[in-house]
């Protein structure tokens, strides 16, 4: 029996955060159940027992331990299976700086980037037009974020210090989505950010997973 089941969906940035973490950790002893969001499977009574807000991802272990929130899941899996992606608990300052970097990612990047992804990507599937006002406001926030990140990444190699860490993985799905929506320039136009980005996505396990996903997406589009 696999160690746990990951409930997610195809193309979900939050689910991909967990998948990337597992790929980087070389962990394969799990199964994935893909929910169909357009059919509303994430809002079923059964799924809401795993996630009260009816969202994805969620995991259920073989022993029945259930949790949700992609970043919390990533941290739990990294600790449980000893992926070298977190500072040791005994180092209070390094742990605090990791928490700081995680808050920065969630509040100053993922919040506005998520709005862009919703307007330009998700709304297409719902047959709704994007809101220009929301887009321009969110883009301004993302640009401001990367202006500061450019300075920070000129002094250190990764978002939480000089070692690749879980918090760098957190960025990958939404930055990929920004590229897909035509906003890749926010990364490529900034030298230090661009260098950091290439360091992250050229890591072998991550590169393999992203390439496999790209291929699967092409096949799906071709056969539609």
């Amino acid at each position, binding site marked *: 029996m696999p160690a746990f089941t990951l409930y997610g969906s195809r193309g979900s940035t939050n689910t991909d955060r967990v998948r990337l973490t597992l790929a980087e950790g070389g962990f394969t002893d799990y199964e994935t159940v893909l929910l169909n969001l357009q059919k509303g499977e994430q809002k079923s009574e059964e799924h809401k027992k795993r996630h009260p*807000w009816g969202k994805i991802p969620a995991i259920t272990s073989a022993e029945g331990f259930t949790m949700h929130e992609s970043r919390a899941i990533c941290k*739990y899996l990294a*600790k449980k299976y000893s992926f070298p992606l977190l500072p040791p608990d005994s180092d209070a300052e390094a742990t*605090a700086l990791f*928490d700081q970097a995680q*808050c*920065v990612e*969630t509040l100053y990047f993922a919040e506005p980037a998520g709005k862009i992804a919703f307007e330009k990507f998700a709304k297409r599937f719902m047959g709704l037009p994007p809101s220009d006002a929301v887009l321009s406001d969110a883009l301004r926030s993302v640009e401001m974020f990367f202006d500061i990140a450019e300075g920070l990444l000129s002094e250190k190699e990764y978002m939480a210090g000089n070692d690749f860490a879980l918090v760098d993985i957190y960025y990958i799905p939404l930055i990929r989505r920004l590229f897909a929506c035509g906003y890749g320039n926010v990364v490529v136009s900034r030298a230090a950010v661009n260098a950091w980005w290439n360091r992250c996505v050229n890591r072998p396990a991550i590169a393999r997973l992203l390439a496999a996903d790209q291929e699967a997406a092409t096949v799906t589009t071709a056969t539609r």
Partner: protein
Amino acid sequence: MVHIIGNNIATCTQRVLLRLAVLGVTDFTLYSPDVMAGEHKKLPHTAKHPFGLIPVLEDGDFTLYESRAICRYLATKYNGQSKDLIPDCKDLKATALFDQWASVELTDFDAFASELVAQNLFYKWRGLEAIPEVVDLVTKKLSDKLDIFDTLLAKQKYMGGNVFSLIDTFYMPYTEKLFEAGEGELTTSRPNVKAWWDRVTVRATWKLVNVKITG
């Protein structure tokens, strides 16, 4: 002695002050930058907080920003004095659930509550008009989320489980500000959310920290 840079009427600073109060730590200093004059957007502040925000913690030569990261650092640093619980880092599942509930606060509450408070309160302070479409949208989103919180709080007494914890203190400053912004009904109309709010605000440490703006 830790040094805090922030304003005692600012929600994110209040998170940290509440944490210090709950931990029983009175041995700290507080410097309030002149936010209206933009002091937090310039050097020397931006050398400490590149994003030009408050609060910031300085502990010797260690500098930290992000109120929730500061709260967790303080809870670990003063763990011996803490009367509430932050899970033992060796308890993987308790720590994971703690991270889960901390994430819920950010993505299912703060994202909408902070926007609503900004529109209905902070904008007024700066002499700006709220944007009705934004107010309607975030009010609806926040209402929908609070409906779920109401069912959650029927099963657990506090936001992180059955004991008062750091997680509750993450919610408290903006929940209070919703009242000041004229949106208190979002809390009071939901019986379990209201019961949680009554439970957490009766605590002496909250009364110490809660500073209302007058005038």
